[in-house]
């Protein structure tokens, strides 16, 4: 064997290998070609074995040449492999195209009811000012619902609370959350900052703005110097939190269990204060009643009115919700038509 013959074979081998690699379309066939040419029993390997038959001076030259051929074939295999995989991936991806404009797979999501959500919103605001939540019974006794709140059995103000009575002597369905004031004062000592949400009942025919069951949130704060100015400060924060930066005002109200009593007005959220049917042209909307806890009530709560003073407020949850969510009819709340409920997503 001489150098020329062997290198000629090598060259032909290289040409054939490169051509075959180039024509291959199957990644598996590339592996076969690698074995066929570069494997232990491969054709290029076999040519290399012939190096022993060459004169000693030709061997390095041939070795270098053979190495180059091996490198070239290897490179061609790798390059073709990359190309084939890229093509295969592109073809797969192409085949996986979907109509991305179709709707997604729906994840079930329910809704939360406006009444507990409004209670939560109210509790959140007052919670920031240290008010903690208590709850009183809905089947309340007459003493706590009325008499301890300075409403004697034949007090003319009883007309303000048409009452549903139950078949347990001395008991009724609470007409407001205010009896909770007595219960909180009796169960804890000042400083008191309490919030009492819950269901109330009245003997009242149902229409768009009345119901015999409704919800209130009562607030109570008692400490040595708690004043009407503290009440105003807190209620302003509350009104701003729920209704945005609006003007507010105090005006006199009347409750037997507060003295002085307050009605708390917020600039009409419909007209902004210029006057509209929603606010009876006054420009104001009353959102809650409040006042300084009456000394009689403090005493019934076991608190010395000479040492402590405090305020209480009470609001209708539906009223607050109506204003926040523009609910037109009170009956929506307890009727539970899903077309109403599902708007609170």
């Amino acid at each position: 064997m001489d150098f020329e013959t062997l290198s000629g074979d090598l060259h032909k081998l290289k040409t054939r290998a490169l051509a075959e690699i180039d024509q291959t379309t199957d990644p598996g066939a590339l592996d076969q070609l690698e074995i066929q040419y570069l494997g232990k029993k491969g054709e290029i390997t076999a040519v290399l074995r012939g190096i022993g038959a060459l004169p000693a001076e030709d061997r390095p030259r041939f070795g270098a040449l053979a190495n180059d051929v091996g490198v070239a074939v290897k490179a061609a295999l790798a390059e073709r492999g990359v190309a084939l995989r890229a093509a295969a991936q592109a073809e797969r991806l192409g085949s996986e195209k979907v109509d991305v404009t179709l709707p997604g797979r729906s994840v079930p999501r329910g809704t939360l009811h406006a009444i507990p959500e409004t209670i939560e919103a109210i509790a959140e605001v007052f919670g920031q000012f240290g008010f903690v939540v208590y709850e009183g019974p809905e089947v309340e006794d007459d003493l706590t619902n009325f008499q301890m709140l300075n409403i004697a059995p034949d007090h003319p103000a009883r007309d303000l609370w048409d009452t549903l009575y139950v078949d347990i002597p001395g008991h009724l369905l609470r007409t407001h959350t205010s009896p909770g004031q007595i219960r909180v004062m009796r169960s804890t000592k000042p400083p008191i900052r309490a919030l009492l949400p819950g269901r109330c009942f009245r003997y009242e025919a149902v229409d768009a703005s009345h119901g015999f069951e409704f919800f209130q949130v009562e607030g109570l704060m008692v400490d040595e110097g708690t004043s009407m100015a503290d009440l105003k400060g807190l209620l302003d924060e509350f009104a701003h939190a729920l209704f945005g930066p609006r003007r507010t005002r105090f005006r006199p109200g009347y409750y037997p269990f507060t003295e002085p009593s307050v009605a708390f007005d917020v600039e009409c959220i419909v007209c902004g204060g210029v006057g509209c049917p929603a606010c009876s042209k006054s420009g104001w909307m009353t959102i809650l009643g409040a006042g300084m806890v009456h000394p009689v009530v403090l005493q019934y709560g076991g608190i010395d009115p000479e040492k402590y003073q405090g305020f209480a407020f009470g609001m209708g949850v539906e009223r607050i919700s109506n204003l926040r969510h523009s609910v037109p009819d009170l009956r929506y709340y307890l009727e539970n038509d899903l077309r109403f409920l599902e708007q609170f997503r």
Partner: protein
Amino acid sequence: MRVPLSWLRDYVDIQQTPEQLAERLTLLGMEVQGVDQWGSDWRNVVVGELLTVEKHPFADRLHITTVNVGSGETLHIVCGANNIAPGQRVPVALPGAVLPGDRRIERTEKMGIASEGMLCSGDELKITTDAEGILILPPATRLGVQLSDLYGDVVLDVDVKPNRGDALCLIGLAREVAAATGAVARWPEIVVAETGGPVAQRLKVEVREPELCTRFVGRWITGASIGPSPDTIQMRLQAAGMRPVSNVVDASNYVMLELGKPTHTFDGAAVHDGTIVVRLAQAGERLETLDHVERDLSPDTLIIADTRGPIGIAGVMGGAESEITGATTEIAIESAIFDPVSIRRTGHRYALRSEASLRFEKGQEFRLARLGADRVAQLTLAWAGGSVAAGRVDTATTEPTEARLAFRPRRISKLLGAEISTADQRALLRRVGVETEAAETGARIQVAVEPKPLVVDAGDEETFLAVVPTWRRDLAVEADVAEEVARVRGYETTPAHLPDTVMPAYRPSPLRARNMVRETLAGAGLSEVVTHALVSPMEQARLLWPADDSEPRLPASLAADLEDEIAVTNPLSAQHSVLRRNMAGSLLDVLSLNERQGRSDVAIFEVGKVYGRVQGQPREWVRLGFLLSGSAEPASWNRAARQFDLDDAKGLVELLCRRLGLPQPAYAPDGRGFPFHPGRALLARQEAGRETVVGRVAELHPDVLAEWDVRSQRVVAAEIAIAGLDVATPSSVHVEPIPRFPEAERDLAVIVDRECPAADVEAAIIRHGGGLLRTIRLFDLYRGAPLAASEKSLAYRLVFGAKDRTLTEGEVDEAVADVRRGLEGDLRARLRS
């Protein structure tokens, strides 16, 4: 109370516009709820002069008139009234006019004669009650003027609070206007021209119940003639919302609105022996009241009687027999002070509440008895003529002087949270008629009155005495003085200040656990509902949701017995007359309503209360109820529909337990049947002793669904008591260290009898699994070949591990062998590996 401004101006000067006045009164605590234009429903009604009045040629009862309405042209109007004559001034509705009740007047033809408008009666205009004759206006009334300009008025609708009976009248509101504007309120001049003989010859009064009738003032008028009161008076009463009746009755009503003093006028001839007795009714006595209802009088009713029997229910309503009629000439006037509580009870007992009784209930200023009697006599004389007997019958002539109420200006500033100087406080009080004088040291301060009185010693603190006007019966304690200072100063000036005192102790919110439940269920696709607590007794009977002794009880949630329902004794309707014992009925109501609206997929929940009584006392428990009906996953382009079933409900219970950090519940079948599907109902609970969740989960019986007219064939409902929903019980997760050594898994297929509950298999595996068994999970349930028909196969994956080492194959094999032997022994199970 409806307050015509033109009337109010009799007692106080008003410079403000009606809107300004309304705002000032509102800010003073007399809330003006409406500013109405009285007469705004007379459109195109003008003053005209009758030129001629002639008989209608074809109709006896009609007249043809010519009318000058000041515009130069003469109108021809056909009229049916008989009280008209040339020269009179009358209201003329021109063609195109609109009268109250939206009655439109057009050019018409009456019996062949054209009529260019209409002459109006007082009734047609709703300013007097006379429907027979045309309203004859004063002769000097200007022609062509719109009637609304002439008689139109602004009427304020004032909400007078129950404690301010003194302001439930024009004089009272004039005093409030004066306080608001600085004007001066004036009383009408009350002077009675007495031309008759001594009243004692006519009227004797005997009060047998001086506690219930603290003062009775009587007057007598002879020779009055009953007829309508003057048109202007009728207009005032109408504008104030009171229907004119006759001159004498109107005088009484006028005085009630003017002074706030209800009085009563009797036909003197019907007062037997001229003797009035104020006493309690006797058993068996009856009275026909003015509304012509014959009433049995109960013995605790305070009545006005003569020597023969009852002639009126005191302070509430007079008797029909002694009513003022057209034939009446002798008039007995009653102006009394009755006990407010007695009047209130009587009004309730007979379901008779009048404008008069409402005023008596709020309490009356003592001197009003005298002033009221005089004023009624004065007006009756003016409107009905006759002669007033000299003097009054008066059972309590001594009128009390003003009370003194001590107050500490510093205390008032502290309560209001605003520094108001003593001088300012005194000046503010003067504006509502409360004079002040310095008190001696050590004055007694009335902090609270009945029912829980408290009087303290002022010590050396600066103290003043408020001289309480006799009409202000509401000023009784120091805090009342504070309110007067605050309201005259203006509540709107209250400074805003955030509390900067010590915070209360931490208290976990009872809403927290409930909110976790709510959020979790909403996140799982359920919609929250809030339903009525009051339900129909039928609903409880139709459902019979079990709450008997077999139900395990949570410490905070005793299950009450069915007969322990709480019922409302005065329900609005039977539909809402008992407090609910369970929530499932309410949820079915919601399902039914939504199905009627065409919704078939309904998944709802409520966290609410159920009610019952324990040992006679009311009890309330917070419960979670949920209901699933229709599709859990509605059919979609990329997913087939899946209906809700019992497993969805159980999955929700398990999810909640995880969310609340509570142990998973075990399930026990409940085969009772109605109201449940006999094969698809269960009791969920934790093992005894650590019960934190107890509840029933069931597919409802088809008969229940039929009761509610529910279309859905399968409805799953659950009602669950969860510890922590009633009260806050903070729970926290305790973390186990992450296992440092690998765990070993083994699968076990357990073949048991088809009826053997899976819960029993699981319990047996846990029982025999030993300390190395960490978790088990059911991953397959199989019935069919090659198993016998009576068999099923449950496949579990068991995970074993130890904290301190990697388990050897041998250890795991041994544990599995123990489980295997246990299952074979306890359940006669076969095992496949």
